[in-house]
């Protein structure tokens, strides 16, 4: 009825290949932007920022990053936590070494450093695939965490071995440290998400994205038609790590404020982001958002219902959450390997025909 391509004529190829080809989707997108920018900043408080919005936005960046590598380019990675740690420690070193520079540049710099590290650990992907590559990236995960624990230079020789973000301001408003307001944190993270999601969309719809997907779907054929596999895989590692590095930097500086590497960026983090990508949908940017939202909101929801509503003990609720997430992952792998994004696509296809069955 309202969700139709009919009548919305595309007269140029630019028009035909836009992100939201159906008018209703465009309106929905503007509505989301309006809510995110026009309403949420004015009503957000510390609880909502630290429990829901900020982690959702940061995990979205990490999930988009991993999705570029695993979903678009087909290279499985279990090193996400390690690469987030690189981003966190890079931003910490940059913040403490150049305190006069704007923190936005520190975060971007952390992304670039992580991209370099990602390329380095991506080199084995030229020789090995699948499970074997997963194990190689797992080595990266453990090596990086070990490195940041063992080399005191990385945590500026602090006695606790932790790093904690010094207070930094953006246009006079505190962004890190204890004084930072929920609104400032939210808006900066939202800005990063908006720009990075746009970059990811551009990259995945153009030549680079097609070369990634070609490598994912059939690497031999990709090479025969002119894709340089070395270039395609390493750019995927670089872009993916850039995103994950920025996520790690924001996670440390804006969200947590103080970090112990094994705790915040351990193997659990790698799996969490991987689960977001799998549940959300491999090879879909919308899926990255959906997966991040799902895995950030689910614990909050369960906690509110089980502990707040039913009065169950907290530890029981926490264990139940693990079981539910595990069950869902098994369910998704069997029932819908393409995740929430695929369910969303199917729903849209049905909606296009609605109220007619065919």
């Amino acid at each position, binding site marked *: 009825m309202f969700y139709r391509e009919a009548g919305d004529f595309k007269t*140029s*190829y*630019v028009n*035909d*290949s836009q992100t939201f080809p159906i008018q209703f989707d465009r309106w929905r997108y503007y509505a989301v932007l309006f809510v995110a920018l026009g309403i949420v900043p004015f009503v957000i408080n510390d609880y909502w920022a630290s429990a829901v919005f900020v982690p959702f936005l940061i995990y979205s960046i990490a999930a988009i990053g991993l999705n570029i590598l695993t979903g678009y380019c087909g290279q499985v990675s279990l090193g996400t936590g390690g690469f987030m740690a690189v981003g966190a420690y890079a931003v910490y070193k940059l913040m403490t070494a150049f305190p006069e520079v704007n923190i936005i540049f520190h975060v971007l710099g952390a992304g670039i450093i992580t991209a370099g590290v990602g390329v380095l650990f991506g080199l084995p992907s030229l020789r090995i695939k699948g499970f074997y590559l997963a194990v190689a990236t797992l080595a990266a995960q453990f090596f990086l965490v070990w490195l940041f624990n063992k080399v005191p230079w990385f945590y500026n020789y602090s006695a606790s071995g932790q790093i904690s973000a010094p207070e930094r301001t953006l246009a006079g408003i505190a962004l890190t440290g204890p004084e930072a307001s929920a609104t400032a944190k939210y808006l900066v993270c939202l800005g990063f998400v908006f720009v990075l999601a746009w*970059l990811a969309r*551009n*990259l995945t719809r*153009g*030549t*680079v994205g*097609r*070369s990634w*997907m*070609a490598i*994912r*779907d*059939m690497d*031999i*054929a*990709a*090479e*025969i*038609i*002119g*894709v*340089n*596999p070395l270039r395609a895989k390493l*750019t995927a590692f670089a872009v993916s790590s850039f995103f994950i590095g920025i996520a790690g930097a924001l996670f440390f500086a804006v969200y947590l404020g103080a970090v112990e590497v094994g705790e915040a960026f351990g193997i659990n983090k790698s799996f969490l982001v991987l689960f977001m990508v799998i549940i959300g949908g491999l*090879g879909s940017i919308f899926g990255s958002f959906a997966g991040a939202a799902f895995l950030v909101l689910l614990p909050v929801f369960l906690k509110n219902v089980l502990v707040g509503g039913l009065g169950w003990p907290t530890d029981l609720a926490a264990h139940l959450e693990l079981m539910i997430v595990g069950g869902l992952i098994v369910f998704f792998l069997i029932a819908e390997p393409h995740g929430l994004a695929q369910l969303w696509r199917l729903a849209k296809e049905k909606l296009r025909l609605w109220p007619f069955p065919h």
Partner: protein
Amino acid sequence: MKDIAEGYVTADGRKIGGTLMEMKNITLRFGGVVAIKDISFDIREGEIRAIIGPNGAGKSSMLNVISGFYVPTEGEVWFRGEPRPQMRPYQVARQGIARTFQNIALFKGMSTLDNIMTGRMTLMESNMAQQAFWWGRAQKEESEHREKVEKIIDFLEIQAIRKTPVGRLPYGLQKRVELGRALAAEPKLLLLDEPMAGMNVEEKEDMSRFILDVNDEFGTTIALIEHDMGVVMDLSDRVVVMDYGKKIGDGTPDEVRNNQDVIDAYLGVSHD
């Protein structure tokens, strides 16, 4: 056969040019197995050249040598008058050699349009930064190449499946999309590995028509492997026959048909 040093004119009046590719004494060994034994032949500009032979004769290996997937143990590949240095397959693609596969090798998760757009990979020039910001060349290039791709889609009559993921398409259409992907690169030389395998008569007729039209309209040189003798004899200008890695015949379809070695290879020889 006529002297063909400067090219020749076919029975249906097409002009065939000089040598585009020449295989000189190609030998390919895998350990003790000799897949190709000292084979030489040439492919001329604008012609349809078939490679035939019984199963295991080394035809696909030969195609893999041409497309850079295998490096010949001995011998040289000459392309456009120069010996080709050792190259990775993607570099060969950039020289203007495209191919299709015996078992369809499409990118299953991508749409028909994206598959064919990927075929133009070698012709795209915008760099990654331009693409990331969708600025300057990137956006313009996308539309320009889309226009070329749409022409191929029209040519192959696959407009209706433009945005369908290729994994959902029936076999015959997938073969057609794969041909489209190879054509998108605007190749000088198009290699087709059994383009008609597993097709019914109608699909074969369609595919034959497309192959002839590609050759006729775009002037693309085509080298193909095919088992259907009727198709080979009708389509090709010249035929190379291989058996057990050796060349046993080379010439026009009529010459090859009457060659005693070829008849023996296909029908067997009685030993009494």
